[in-house]
């Protein structure tokens, strides 16, 4: 053994590796497009952002109460993307992040300044991740807005920081009512100024899911399982509220599993003991997989109807044979013909571009909401940005919030967007789909058996 020689060799290799890493990809933070997007996105009819016709102002306008961002000449406008790009929920966050990238490409420059999304931040689908990422974002005062988060739990932790910094955040897949309101005028417990979303409020989804269960399936006794985070808990609570008060059904048990839990036999035994006709478990595939695989072995649950939500409309879950026969509530996924008025792209166009650029179809439904959220942010920035004659841009933060809050009748690929006072902007179309064949997932996503837009 010659430890000295080995050590020396390893040290040299280590130094080389460090040098290569440092010199290799130097331009990751200041590009206009996100680094992973190759240049294959030819948009046939991209209409550029509407040009301002006013002459540039000579001196900056007065700052509003939240301050303003001045983007110097030649600098990029800074926004950020905060999605769950690693871990169990990456199937949801990665299409969201890609939707943002595609939107930036399609929108183009704002008043002569390119838009930079920086390096994509990770919300880890948890409060810790959301808070850590928010701290990174607010430490850079040039950031104007964020498109994110993927998970409601992360948004609950991130919003206090982002709101206090005067920035805005538009989410494409947060659905927890706590972040906005209960759709009846009562503000949610975690609502903060500057938060908006293009995804539906789960109050609506819970009500539609309950309506389907009661009116179409004729159920009177349903068991609920959530996994402790604001999205799943919000959805089961919304379902419970609607199912018991509006439709007169009973909830036999309202219990939870822990994240990363694998042994579902005790919780399913508890559910079986309460004698339900159906189980509504609007959770994620990490735990949902174990539930569908183990439910068959529990005495008393042989004929129970399994009912999930948009967290489970993921390819890796739908491919499991045991998921056949399940119903899923979720956002209306049949937006094919809708066109985004600002970029002129239809949903089908954007989806085709997605598949061409990334080589695979989107693994979760909210990519389209993410595209709309990013375009919404960019068009609002465009609206309030004032071009100064030294080539810089003056963007007042309060004016941006006002512009976003006043959004109405805005046509996106997910439908018509109208923002209410609490930040809910989505068209609110919720459907229930039925999963027949685990080998044909696209058919399932189009197999709508109930919709609230009829």
């Amino acid at each position, binding site marked *: 053994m010659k430890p000295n020689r080995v050590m020396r060799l390893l040290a040299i290799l280590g130094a080389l590796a460090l040098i290569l890493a440092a010199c290799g990809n130097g331009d990751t933070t200041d590009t206009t497009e996100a680094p992973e997007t190759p240049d294959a996105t030819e948009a046939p009819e991209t209409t550029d952002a509407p040009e301002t016709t006013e002459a540039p102002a000579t001196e900056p306008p007065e700052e509003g109460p939240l301050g303003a961002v001045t983007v110097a000449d030649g600098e990029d406008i800074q926004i950020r993307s905060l999605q769950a790009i*690693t*871990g*169990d929920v*990456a*199937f949801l966050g990665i299409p969201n992040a890609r939707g943002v990238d595609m939107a930036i490409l399609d929108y183009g420059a704002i008043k002569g300044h390119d838009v930079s999304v920086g390096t994509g931040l990770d919300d880890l689908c948890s409060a810790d991740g959301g808070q850590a990422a928010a701290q990174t974002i607010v430490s850079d005062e040039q950031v104007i807005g964020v498109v994110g988060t993927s998970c409601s739990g992360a948004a609950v932790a991130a919003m206090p920081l982002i709101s206090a910094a005067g920035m805005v955040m538009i989410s494409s897949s947060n659905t927890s009512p706590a972040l906005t309101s209960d759709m009846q005028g009562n503000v949610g417990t975690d609502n903060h100024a500057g938060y908006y979303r293009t995804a539906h409020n789960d109050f609506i989804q819970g009500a539609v899911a309950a309506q389907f269960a009661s009116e179409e399936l004729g159920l009177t006794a349903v068991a609920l399982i959530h996994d*402790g985070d604001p999205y799943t808990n919000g959805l089961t609570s919304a379902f419970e509220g609607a199912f018991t008060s509006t439709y007169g059904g009973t909830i036999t*048990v*309202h*219990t*939870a*599993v*822990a994240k*990363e*839990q*694998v*042994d579902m*036999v*005790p*919780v399913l*035994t*508890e559910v*079986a*003991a309460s004698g339900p006709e159906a189980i509504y478990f609007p959770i994620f*595939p*990490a735990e949902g*997989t*174990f539930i569908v*695989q*183990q439910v068959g*072995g*529990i*005495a*008393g649950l042989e004929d129970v109807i399994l009912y999930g939500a948009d967290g489970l409309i993921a390819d*890796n879950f739908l491919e*499991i044979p045991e998921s056949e026969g399940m119903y899923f509530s979720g956002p209306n996924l049949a937006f094919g013909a809708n066109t985004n008025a600002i970029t002129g792209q239809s949903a089908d166009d954007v989806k085709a571009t997605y598949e061409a650029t990334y080589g695979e179809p989107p693994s979760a439904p909210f990519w389209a909401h993410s595209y709309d959220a990013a375009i919404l942010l960019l068009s609002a920035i465009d609206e309030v940005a004032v071009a100064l004659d030294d080539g810089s841009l003056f963007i007042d933060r309060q004016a941006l919030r006002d512009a976003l809050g006043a959004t109405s009748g805005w046509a996106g690929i997910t439908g018509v967007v109208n923002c209410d006072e609490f930040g809910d902007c989505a068209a609110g179309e919720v459907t229930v789909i039925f999963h027949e064949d685990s080998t044909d997932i696209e058919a399932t996503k189009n197999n709508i058996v109930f919709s609230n837009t009829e």
Partner: protein
Amino acid sequence: MLSRNVTPPATTTPTKTRRFRFNWVDGFLWFIRIAAIIVIVVGIVGSIQLFAAGEGPTLEQWRDLVISSFATGAMYGLIALGYSMVYGVLGFINFAHGEVFMSGTMVGLIASTMLFDSGFWDANPMASLLIVVLVAMFTSTLVAVLIERVAYRPLRNAPRLIPLITSIGVSFFLQYAFAGLFGVGVRSYPPAPGNLDDDVEIFGISIAGTKLLVIVVAAISMVALWYFVKRTKTGTAMRAVAEDKEIAGLMGINVERTIVTTFAVGGAMAGVAGLLWALLFRGVDFLTGFLPGIKAFTAAVLGGIGNLPGAMLGGVLLGLFEGVGPLLVLAGLGIPAVSQLKDFVAFSALILVLIFRPSGLLGERLGSEDRA
């Protein structure tokens, strides 16, 4: 000097009563013990009342729950054996053992997928399972021996805290190495082959075939390990090294080789546990080893660290506590939706056992360095 008073004071309290000095800590512990017993008894009585009233799980559901928890506990026990053995021989907790288990079950999944795709899986159920268990055992043993060689042997003479911290690092390393090799998504074993899933009648109790297989395999492994440790020369060497490394070396035992054997045997047991995981839960990802690893460590402490029958007993008891505990005790106390408190019950059980019997249920076996 001479004026120091060496005679006992004239008016002393008799030595008998002096022993009953009230110690607040002892008093508090007694309070906890009594409170725990009361809570548990009230909970069980409440559950029996619920059962008599027709609510709560039926007898079949209880039976299935107990069997399922027992099977899960047997699996925890096999993993706990690895923790106990390494602690007995080297005196530190090998936190990477959970990942040793994960490596076995992950590679076993690759093997089972290949067997399933070729049709062998359904055609020859027993042969397929045998192949998978051998692959899992081989992988786990290999990983265990490798980490011993690379991470722990250089630290043989370091203070015992150092290899403990190293083991945490090794644990993360293995997790993310496997994430890089096999991806981050959850992958599932194929469904149990043949009609393994069907119920089997034993003494009039109907048990699912897979659960029965898990219990049988765990029992066979435990018996094989007991035989190995008690009757073979290598096993005796292991026990000697665990007792006192220095003297064992002086007696002519090759201590290094024995330590490697200990890791290998622990790894093999974890590999068998990998197969049991495949039968019980089917889904595997790179983080699969984390929680079972912690639970198995808890089980090892519960049964008495360093004690092999204790590890197995601790595992089975932990499985039963966490599976049956919430519904048996907490539901009877009127707490709604008790299944979320599964982990709470499991770790409370650990705390309570340690309060009642600090050395674990069957007593700990410490090496000479740790004994007082």
